[in-house]
């Protein structure tokens, strides 16, 4: 890890006005043990930016839940070939997954909610991976989810996944970009993209929990559409927690 103790809030204030490429460059310059979380969707932009800064040297990992679309698996391979990079594919814990499927079947998320399944297939493996890192980079954007996520910072102290007595820093270089800006970058730079986007998918996750969205629909409506949106109420409002 960088030997500098990062005053995260102050750095966020500085970086939030900068372009994603500059945020990426900052992240890569400060941390050696850092990795990009690649979902197999439009966050390929992050890989492209990192590749231009430091070709072939940035760690990339993806979470294979076992329920992704075939198109997404093909896209992982396309990206691997296009950039000549290794992608560390992370899998769920076999025992936990086996217990879930044996007890509740393969589609329990339609009856309960998606969180138990996501916890085992995605969050558990993510945590295992993040325990090996000092910092990580995501493609999360403010416009992806209305409401509570309107305050995603470009850099944050990741308190959920840090190792005991250590810090884990999370970068969200695309936080301030809109979906339109991401797609403009993809087209201008002729990046590979997931063929599901040509079939009307905007937000891409697991096959049973993702559907195409129509014009005017928010991308969130393409995920877990059978669940009611619930208000999140435990955030400490950003304006009050800034120094």
């Amino acid at each position, binding site marked *: 890890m960088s030997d500098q103790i990062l005053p995260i809030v102050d750095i966020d204030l500085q970086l939030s006005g900068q372009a994603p490429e500059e945020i990426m460059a900052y992240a890569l310059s400060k941390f050696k043990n850092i990795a990009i979380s690649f979902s197999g969707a439009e966050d390929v932009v992050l890989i492209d930016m990192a590749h231009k800064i430091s070709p072939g040297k940035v760690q990339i990992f993806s979470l294979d839940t076992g329920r992704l679309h075939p198109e997404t698996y093909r896209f992982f391979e396309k990206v691997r070939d296009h950039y000549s990079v290794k992608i560390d594919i992370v899998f769920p814990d076999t025992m936990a997954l086996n217990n879930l499927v044996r007890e509740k079947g393969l589609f329990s998320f339609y009856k309960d909610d998606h969180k138990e399944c996501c916890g085992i297939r995605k969050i558990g493996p993510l945590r295992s991976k993040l325990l090996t890192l000092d910092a990580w980079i995501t493609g999360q954007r403010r416009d992806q989810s209305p409401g509570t996520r309107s305050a995603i910072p470009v850099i944050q102290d990741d308190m959920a996944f840090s190792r005991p007595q250590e810090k884990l820093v999370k970068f969200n270089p695309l936080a301030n970009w809109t979906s339109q800006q991401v797609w403009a970058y993809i087209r201008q730079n002729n990046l590979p993209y997931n063929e599901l986007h040509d079939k009307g998918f905007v*937000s891409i996750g697991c096959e049973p929990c993702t559907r195409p969205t129509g014009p005017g629909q928010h991308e969130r409506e393409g995920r877990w559409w059978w669940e009611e949106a619930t208000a999140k109420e*435990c955030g400490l409002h950003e304006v009050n927690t800034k120094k």
Partner: protein
Amino acid sequence: MKITFVKKIQLDGNFCKKCKEVQDKINAADQNQFIDQVIIADERDPSSPGMVLAALYSADRAPFFIVEKEGRSPKVYTVYFKFVKEVLGQKITEEDQLKEILNDNPDLDFL
């Protein structure tokens, strides 16, 4: 070691739902004995002690715990089960911990 538990009062004057849930778990597990002080982050008053601590430690979720050990930088925990496991040294189920993380970080399921 000094443990501070920060709970949030919402604009409507009530404790936030998760603060109540965590307090119930603390009571049920008889963990109040380990907590040195409880401080309130009152959303109606940005200068309330808990809001000041939230700003100081960049805590964007409530409730949270501040753990201070001699000779070390204070560590903030926003995940109750992580706090229980790492600070109190008590056993918790993996399932409970993962579910709490996802509940508190809804955008993680976009990854």
